[in-house]
């Protein structure tokens, strides 16, 4: 119990520390260029790799949703409403969540392993010995990159899912592509977009922050790196679902 409280305490301390360090990391005169270059590298590493997988997975999920739902609506002669449901489910829920899970596997695990290896190789200590703050130098660019790329990935994933739904509808449900598109566009409100992307941004922070945190906590050689890398994936997925639940409840309560 105490260990758990300490664990969460440490994690929130790292989050606070990251917030504190964002300002200096991105603005202080000399460090600026370095920080931006770092951010750019991290965005590529964390996000770009995940794009093909997210597209593929979300395409399939869109198609699956359409095929699962359509028969129910067909009973009432309302097949086109399938597009509405696919659109809502995707933008509000599946888009951010599935993209986040994919990014956890790609970016999260890679970050934890990378930082863990740096701990084992005394690199973090060497950094501190040079008065370079590892939070500012390592954590901030990764967390900011995670947040930005998560939002981008979610947009890509949303579109892929809609496209998957479209393909399934046209091929299997004999729905016109125009009809599908019109229905989807009509049902979507700005709020659906915003809530989905807000979630995505928070997920991005969560994924990278947990990965950095567990990476920095690595003790004891290669074994420790492996252990904390798999811990990262498990913890992150649990955390994602919990935070998602909280978000959804709050949005429900607020009526957005």
């Amino acid at each position, binding site marked *: 119990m105490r260990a758990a409280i300490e664990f969460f305490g440490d994690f929130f301390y790292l989050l606070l520390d990251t917030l504190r360090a964002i300002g200096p990391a991105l603005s202080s*005169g*000399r*460090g600026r260029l*370095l920080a931006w270059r770092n951010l750019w590298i991290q965005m590529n590493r964390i996000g770009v790799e995940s794009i093909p997988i997210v597209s593929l997975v979300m395409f399939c999920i869109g198609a699956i949703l359409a095929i699962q739902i359509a028969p129910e609506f067909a009973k009432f002669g309302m097949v086109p409403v399938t597009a509405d449901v696919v659109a809502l489910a995707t933008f509000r829920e599946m888009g951010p969540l599935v993209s986040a899970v994919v990014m956890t596997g790609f970016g999260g695990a890679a970050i934890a392993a*990378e930082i863990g*290896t*740096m701990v084992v*190789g*005394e*690199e973090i*200590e*060497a*950094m*501190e*010995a*040079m*008065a*370079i703050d590892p939070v500012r*130098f390592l954590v901030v660019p990764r967390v900011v990159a995670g947040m930005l790329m998560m939002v981008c990935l979610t947009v890509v994933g949303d579109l892929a899912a809609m496209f998957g739904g479209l393909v399934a509808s046209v091929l299997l449900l004999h729905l016109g592509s125009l009809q599908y598109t019109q229905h989807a566009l009509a049902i979507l409100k700005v709020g659906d977009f915003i809530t989905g992307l807000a979630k995505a941004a928070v997920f991005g922070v969560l994924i990278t922050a947990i990965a950095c945190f567990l990476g920095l906590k690595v003790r004891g050689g290669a074994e420790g790196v492996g252990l904390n890398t798999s811990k990262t994936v498990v913890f992150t997925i649990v955390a994602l679902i919990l935070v998602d639940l909280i978000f959804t409840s709050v949005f429900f309560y607020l009526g957005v």
Partner: protein
Amino acid sequence: MPEPLIQLQGISKYFGDRMIYHDLHLDIFPGETLVILGGSGSGKSTLLRVLMGHLKIDAGHVLIRGRSLNDMDRRELDSWRKSVGVLFQTGALFNSMTLRENLALPVREHTDLDDQTIDLMAQIYLQLVGLREHIDKLPAELSGGMKKRGGLARALMMQPRILFYDEPTAGLDPISTAQIGELIMNLKNKMGATSVLVTHDMQSAFQLADRLALLFDGKFAAIGSVEYFRTTADPLVRQFVDGRLDGPFINPSDQCSYKAELLGRKLHEVPHGKKTT
């Protein structure tokens, strides 16, 4: 006598139950080269960590120019760390960066020098340690000794007046060893650098040291000049310096439990057979 630069006052440090230091005292004076001797695992590398403020100690004070590390805020601690160049036992180069980038990093972070100047400095320091032709290699492409020399070059990039070396010559060939020895000597003579040097190599220890300190069982068993270490009859010093097999210098934690463990029993079970209840 000048004011000490660094003072260790009654340092105690435990890793779990394992005692590393108990009531350790040491003064380090500006401009001197102090060599730390001690068996493997006696806490030499840990001592450098304590001096940098990386490791919390369980008791005592580390004073830097009279100011305790414990009392320092982030900025003070950073400025202390910036003024010290540290060579880690493994070199601790950043594996994702080439030697060039490794050397450039601290200077880029802490100064306004332009990239060309920084690059020039990197080349100069790599030349000093004999690695200039490897400037664009990643640490993974270097041997252990080369990494260590790279780490030394990086430690020098900020032109520190205080240097901590953790076994700078271990694993180097005799020529590189001589080269690094001369480099350390020059830093001392030309820049008046204060050095704390951990080494097992008695020859370079005697060559470079102003004073030596022998770490044994959580304390400094002997602190003295080269002359003292060469001539004293202190059996501990003699055994370590001359590399003899017999003497008081046994790994203290292993000493008594070894036999018992081999016999499959715990030490505390051995003396009195059974307990009365």
